[in-house]
Protein backbone atom coordinates (compact mmCIF):
# COMPACT_ATOMS: atom_id res chain seq x y z
CA UNK A 1 0.00 0.00 0.00
CA UNK A 2 1.18 3.50 -0.80
CA UNK A 3 0.00 6.69 0.84
CA UNK A 4 0.24 10.43 0.28
CA UNK A 5 -0.25 12.79 3.22
CA UNK A 6 -1.35 16.42 3.53
CA UNK A 7 -1.37 18.43 6.75
CA UNK A 8 -3.89 21.23 7.07
CA UNK A 9 -2.33 23.18 9.95
CA UNK A 10 -5.02 25.82 9.89
CA UNK A 11 -7.92 23.39 10.30
CA UNK A 12 -5.75 20.98 12.42
CA UNK A 13 -6.58 18.12 10.05
CA UNK A 14 -4.49 15.40 8.40
CA UNK A 15 -5.59 14.08 5.01
CA UNK A 16 -4.35 10.94 3.28
CA UNK A 17 -4.97 9.15 0.01
CA UNK A 18 -4.07 5.50 -0.37
CA UNK A 19 -3.66 2.80 -2.99
CA UNK A 20 -3.77 -0.91 -2.29
CA UNK A 21 -2.18 -2.84 -5.16
CA UNK A 22 -3.82 -1.09 -8.12
CA UNK A 23 -7.05 -0.27 -6.26
CA UNK A 24 -7.62 3.26 -5.00
CA UNK A 25 -8.64 3.30 -1.32
CA UNK A 26 -9.92 6.86 -1.55
CA UNK A 27 -9.22 9.62 0.94
CA UNK A 28 -9.33 9.89 4.74
CA UNK A 29 -9.38 12.90 7.05
CA UNK A 30 -8.59 12.83 10.77
CA UNK A 31 -7.50 15.28 13.46
CA UNK A 32 -3.85 16.23 13.02
CA UNK A 33 -3.11 14.68 16.43
CA UNK A 34 -4.80 11.37 15.53
CA UNK A 35 -3.81 8.11 13.84
CA UNK A 36 -5.23 6.78 10.56
CA UNK A 37 -7.06 3.45 10.35
CA UNK A 38 -7.97 1.60 7.16
CA UNK A 39 -11.66 2.14 7.93
CA UNK A 40 -11.14 5.93 7.71
CA UNK A 41 -10.71 5.77 3.92
CA UNK A 42 -13.70 6.50 1.68
CA UNK A 43 -13.72 6.05 -2.08
CA UNK A 44 -16.18 8.91 -2.44
CA UNK A 45 -14.29 11.43 -0.31
CA UNK A 46 -12.52 14.08 -2.34
CA UNK A 47 -9.37 15.86 -1.33
CA UNK A 48 -9.95 19.64 -0.93
CA UNK A 49 -8.10 21.66 -3.59
CA UNK A 50 -6.73 24.09 -1.04
CA UNK A 51 -4.50 21.28 0.31
CA UNK A 52 -2.22 21.14 -2.71
CA UNK A 53 0.35 23.36 -1.02
CA UNK A 54 0.17 21.38 2.24
CA UNK A 55 1.66 18.16 0.87
CA UNK A 56 3.71 16.39 3.58
CA UNK A 57 5.11 13.37 1.72
CA UNK A 58 4.79 9.80 0.48
CA UNK A 59 4.70 6.73 2.70
CA UNK A 60 4.98 3.00 2.09
CA UNK A 61 2.39 1.94 4.68
CA UNK A 62 -0.26 3.31 7.02
CA UNK A 63 2.07 2.44 9.92
CA UNK A 64 4.70 4.73 8.39
CA UNK A 65 2.14 7.56 8.07
CA UNK A 66 1.10 7.15 11.72
CA UNK A 67 4.72 6.93 12.87
CA UNK A 68 5.38 10.23 11.06
CA UNK A 69 2.36 11.88 12.70
CA UNK A 70 3.46 10.57 16.11
CA UNK A 71 7.04 11.76 15.71
CA UNK A 72 5.78 15.16 14.65
CA UNK A 73 3.74 15.42 17.85
CA UNK A 74 6.71 14.39 19.98
CA UNK A 75 8.92 16.98 18.26
CA UNK A 76 6.34 19.67 18.96
CA UNK A 77 6.04 18.72 22.60
CA UNK A 78 9.77 19.14 23.08
CA UNK A 79 9.77 22.65 21.65
CA UNK A 80 10.19 25.40 24.22
CA UNK A 81 7.28 27.84 23.99
CA UNK A 82 8.29 31.18 22.46
CA UNK A 83 7.47 33.16 25.60
CA UNK A 84 9.93 31.06 27.66
CA UNK A 85 12.86 31.32 25.22
Amino acid at each position, binding site marked *: *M*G*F*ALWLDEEARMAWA*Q*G*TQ*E*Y*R*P*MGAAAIAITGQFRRADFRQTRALPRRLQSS*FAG*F*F*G*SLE*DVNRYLGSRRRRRRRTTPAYLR
Partner: protein
Amino acid sequence: MVFLGDARVLLTLSRISPEKGQDLLLDALIDRERRGETSPLWVFICGDAAFMQGQRFLEKLRKLAARLKHTRVIFPGYVTGERKRAFFALADLYVFPSRHESYGLTLLEALAAGLPAVCLDHHGAREIMRDEFGALVRADQLSNAISRLLAEPSQLRVMSEAARAFAAGEKFYERAAILADILK
Protein backbone atom coordinates in the same frame (compact mmCIF):
# COMPACT_ATOMS: atom_id res chain seq x y z
CA MET B 1 17.38 0.78 -30.57
CA VAL B 2 19.48 1.13 -27.42
CA PHE B 3 23.27 1.32 -27.44
CA LEU B 4 24.59 0.55 -23.98
CA GLY B 5 28.34 0.50 -24.73
CA ASP B 6 30.18 -0.71 -21.64
CA ALA B 7 27.48 0.50 -19.26
CA ARG B 8 26.09 -1.90 -16.66
CA VAL B 9 22.34 -2.28 -16.42
CA LEU B 10 20.07 -2.33 -13.36
CA LEU B 11 16.42 -3.29 -13.57
CA THR B 12 13.50 -2.92 -11.22
CA LEU B 13 9.96 -3.80 -12.07
CA SER B 14 6.85 -2.89 -10.11
CA ARG B 15 4.04 -0.39 -9.76
CA ILE B 16 5.41 3.15 -9.34
CA SER B 17 4.37 3.72 -5.74
CA PRO B 18 6.03 4.70 -2.43
CA GLU B 19 5.91 1.20 -0.91
CA LYS B 20 7.88 -0.11 -3.90
CA GLY B 21 10.87 2.02 -2.86
CA GLN B 22 12.05 3.29 -6.25
CA ASP B 23 13.04 6.50 -4.41
CA LEU B 24 15.37 4.43 -2.18
CA LEU B 25 17.04 2.97 -5.28
CA LEU B 26 17.60 6.45 -6.77
CA ASP B 27 18.90 7.75 -3.40
CA ALA B 28 21.37 4.84 -3.38
CA LEU B 29 22.55 5.70 -6.88
CA ILE B 30 22.96 9.38 -5.92
CA ASP B 31 25.06 8.15 -3.00
CA ARG B 32 27.09 5.96 -5.37
CA GLU B 33 27.99 8.98 -7.50
CA ARG B 34 28.71 11.03 -4.39
CA ARG B 35 31.24 8.37 -3.39
CA GLY B 36 33.00 9.03 -6.69
CA GLU B 37 31.77 5.98 -8.60
CA THR B 38 31.15 7.25 -12.09
CA SER B 39 31.26 4.12 -14.24
CA PRO B 40 28.36 4.31 -16.70
CA LEU B 41 25.13 2.78 -15.51
CA TRP B 42 21.68 2.44 -17.05
CA VAL B 43 18.68 1.93 -14.82
CA PHE B 44 15.31 0.77 -16.10
CA ILE B 45 12.51 1.49 -13.64
CA CYS B 46 9.60 -0.36 -15.23
CA GLY B 47 5.98 -0.09 -14.16
CA ASP B 48 2.88 2.07 -14.27
CA ALA B 49 2.19 4.85 -11.80
CA ALA B 50 -0.24 3.86 -9.04
CA PHE B 51 -3.74 5.30 -9.34
CA MET B 52 -3.75 7.72 -6.39
CA GLN B 53 -0.91 10.28 -6.49
CA GLY B 54 1.16 7.87 -8.58
CA GLN B 55 1.93 10.57 -11.15
CA ARG B 56 3.09 12.87 -8.38
CA PHE B 57 5.38 10.12 -7.03
CA LEU B 58 6.70 9.54 -10.57
CA GLU B 59 7.51 13.25 -10.79
CA LYS B 60 9.45 12.94 -7.53
CA LEU B 61 11.39 10.00 -9.01
CA ARG B 62 12.15 11.98 -12.19
CA LYS B 63 13.52 14.83 -10.08
CA LEU B 64 15.75 12.41 -8.16
CA ALA B 65 16.90 10.83 -11.45
CA ALA B 66 17.78 14.29 -12.81
CA ARG B 67 20.39 14.63 -10.04
CA LEU B 68 22.37 11.72 -11.48
CA LYS B 69 25.20 12.73 -13.82
CA HIS B 70 26.67 9.39 -14.88
CA THR B 71 23.61 7.19 -14.55
CA ARG B 72 20.90 7.13 -17.16
CA VAL B 73 17.48 6.40 -15.69
CA ILE B 74 14.67 5.32 -17.99
CA PHE B 75 11.00 4.85 -17.10
CA PRO B 76 9.63 2.53 -19.80
CA GLY B 77 6.18 2.23 -18.19
CA TYR B 78 4.30 -1.05 -17.83
CA VAL B 79 6.06 -3.98 -19.49
CA THR B 80 4.82 -7.49 -20.05
CA GLY B 81 5.44 -10.58 -22.20
CA GLU B 82 8.30 -10.37 -24.70
CA ARG B 83 9.18 -6.82 -23.70
CA LYS B 84 9.55 -7.82 -20.07
CA ARG B 85 11.72 -10.80 -21.06
CA ALA B 86 13.90 -8.44 -23.13
CA PHE B 87 14.49 -6.22 -20.09
CA PHE B 88 15.45 -9.26 -18.00
CA ALA B 89 17.89 -10.31 -20.74
CA LEU B 90 19.39 -6.81 -20.92
CA ALA B 91 20.01 -6.37 -17.18
CA ASP B 92 23.08 -7.33 -15.14
CA LEU B 93 21.38 -7.02 -11.78
CA TYR B 94 17.80 -6.89 -10.51
CA VAL B 95 17.04 -4.46 -7.68
CA PHE B 96 14.04 -5.10 -5.43
CA PRO B 97 13.86 -1.96 -3.28
CA SER B 98 10.33 -2.47 -1.87
CA ARG B 99 9.86 -1.23 1.68
CA HIS B 100 7.72 -4.31 2.35
CA GLU B 101 6.25 -7.17 0.33
CA SER B 102 4.20 -10.21 1.23
CA TYR B 103 5.65 -12.20 -1.71
CA GLY B 104 8.31 -11.20 -4.21
CA LEU B 105 6.71 -12.21 -7.47
CA THR B 106 8.87 -10.03 -9.75
CA LEU B 107 11.92 -11.05 -7.72
CA LEU B 108 11.22 -14.70 -8.53
CA GLU B 109 10.64 -13.81 -12.18
CA ALA B 110 14.02 -12.09 -12.25
CA LEU B 111 15.75 -15.04 -10.61
CA ALA B 112 14.07 -17.39 -13.09
CA ALA B 113 15.52 -15.25 -15.87
CA GLY B 114 18.98 -15.76 -14.34
CA LEU B 115 19.33 -12.32 -12.79
CA PRO B 116 21.15 -11.96 -9.46
CA ALA B 117 19.34 -9.54 -7.17
CA VAL B 118 19.80 -6.97 -4.44
CA CYS B 119 16.81 -6.66 -2.11
CA LEU B 120 15.89 -4.60 0.87
CA ASP B 121 15.53 -6.78 3.94
CA HIS B 122 11.82 -7.43 4.55
CA HIS B 123 9.66 -10.50 5.01
CA GLY B 124 8.82 -11.10 1.33
CA ALA B 125 12.46 -10.91 0.19
CA ARG B 126 13.80 -12.82 3.19
CA GLU B 127 11.64 -15.79 2.22
CA ILE B 128 13.31 -15.97 -1.18
CA MET B 129 16.79 -14.49 -1.15
CA ARG B 130 19.97 -16.51 -0.59
CA ASP B 131 23.57 -15.29 -0.51
CA GLU B 132 24.33 -17.53 -3.51
CA PHE B 133 22.45 -15.27 -5.89
CA GLY B 134 22.42 -11.81 -4.38
CA ALA B 135 22.24 -9.67 -1.30
CA LEU B 136 19.66 -8.75 1.30
CA VAL B 137 20.47 -5.33 2.73
CA ARG B 138 19.15 -2.31 4.65
CA ALA B 139 18.32 0.83 2.68
CA ASP B 140 21.55 2.52 3.81
CA GLN B 141 23.57 -0.45 2.48
CA LEU B 142 21.92 -0.56 -0.95
CA SER B 143 24.43 1.71 -2.67
CA ASN B 144 27.44 -0.35 -1.51
CA ALA B 145 25.75 -3.64 -2.31
CA ILE B 146 25.01 -2.55 -5.90
CA SER B 147 28.61 -1.35 -6.38
CA ARG B 148 30.06 -4.52 -4.87
CA LEU B 149 28.03 -6.85 -7.08
CA LEU B 150 28.51 -4.88 -10.28
CA ALA B 151 32.28 -4.83 -9.67
CA GLU B 152 32.50 -8.61 -10.02
CA PRO B 153 31.15 -9.80 -13.39
CA SER B 154 32.51 -13.33 -12.90
CA GLN B 155 30.71 -13.58 -9.56
CA LEU B 156 27.52 -12.32 -11.20
CA ARG B 157 27.76 -15.11 -13.77
CA VAL B 158 27.99 -17.72 -11.00
CA MET B 159 25.08 -16.06 -9.18
CA SER B 160 23.05 -16.05 -12.36
CA GLU B 161 23.19 -19.86 -12.58
CA ALA B 162 22.35 -20.19 -8.88
CA ALA B 163 19.39 -17.82 -9.31
CA ARG B 164 18.02 -19.82 -12.22
CA ALA B 165 18.42 -23.13 -10.37
CA PHE B 166 16.71 -21.77 -7.25
CA ALA B 167 13.78 -20.29 -9.16
CA ALA B 168 13.25 -23.53 -11.06
CA GLY B 169 12.54 -25.23 -7.73
CA GLU B 170 10.15 -22.52 -6.51
CA LYS B 171 6.65 -23.17 -7.77
CA PHE B 172 4.19 -20.33 -7.37
CA TYR B 173 1.26 -22.77 -7.32
CA GLU B 174 2.82 -24.57 -4.32
CA ARG B 175 3.12 -21.28 -2.41
CA ALA B 176 -0.45 -20.41 -3.39
CA ALA B 177 -1.64 -23.82 -2.12
CA ILE B 178 0.08 -23.23 1.26
CA LEU B 179 -1.63 -19.84 1.51
CA ALA B 180 -5.00 -21.34 0.53
CA ASP B 181 -4.58 -23.96 3.30
CA ILE B 182 -3.93 -21.23 5.87
CA LEU B 183 -6.99 -19.28 4.73
CA LYS B 184 -9.30 -22.33 4.90
